[in-house]
């Protein structure tokens, strides 16, 4: 398995992040052009999504290569020009498909996790 080379594969959250992060990035750039630093900040403020901010760059590179995002260089007030990311039509389709998959996945896991407790016992005991 490719994951075996890397240290923290045992943590299920790490695996989950790896699986969903790319689509979370697509969601961030769906409605608004953003540059990488902003994307990271949005993801970080959503909580739980990014542990190592630097790993966003390999991910963005892959999204570019897969034509799921387009980029535009724009001058910035401070420092060198920045690369802005925006979703493509192809990215939008991938995101829509993921949204459906995710809803089903989340519901299935929720149902299983709730299985041990009695139904309707959502409030404190």
């Amino acid at each position, binding site marked *: 398995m*490719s994951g075996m080379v*890397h240290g923290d594969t045992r943590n299920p959250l790490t695996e989950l992040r790896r699986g969903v992060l790319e689509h979370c990035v697509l969601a961030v750039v769906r409605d608004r052009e953003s540059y990488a*630093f902003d994307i990271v900040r949005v993801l970080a403020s959503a909580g739980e999504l990014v542990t*190592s*901010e*630097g790993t966003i*760059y390999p*991910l963005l590179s892959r999204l570019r*290569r897969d034509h799921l995002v387009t980029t535009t260089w724009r001058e910035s007030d401070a*420092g060198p020009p920045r690369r802005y990311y925006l979703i493509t039509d192809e990215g939008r389709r991938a995101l829509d498909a993921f949204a459906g998959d995710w809803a089903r996945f989340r519901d299935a896991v929720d149902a299983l996790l709730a299985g041990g407790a009695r139904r309707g016992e959502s409030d404190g005991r």
Partner: protein
Amino acid sequence: MDGDELVRDYLGRLDAASWPLPPERRAELADEVREHIETALAEAGRRDSVTVRNVLERLGRPEEIVSSEVDSEPAPPRWIEARIAEAAAKAPTLGALEIIAILLLTAGAFLLPVFGPAIGLVLVWLSTRWTRREKLIATAIVVVIFVLPIVGLLVVTDG
């Protein structure tokens, strides 16, 4: 280390870790990470070592960034992982073969004149741990120390 030294150190580690990447992507990644650091520091409005450390910590270890780059290669990244594993396996540069080779090249020159260093050199070239460059250097040293004096001696005695 002050803030700027920490940044240089971090970028140096990133450069070292990112050798398996295609050169263009390697340079691009270095630019992206450098820009990220600069943006974060500009935003913080200070670049003392505590602020820098905090920014670098949030970025994650350079090795981790590169490893996620390798994970996201379009083609099965087996060959890259093989290269990384190979490099890791190489980390101890001395195995039994290398130690015997060194002994033959040094003590062997006195105990087994001519044959000792000759066999030692063969072992050097058989080694999978030493690089080609290291092997060439070893060979050059043997040639200079052992072969040239002998050739020189022959020339002088002939003449």
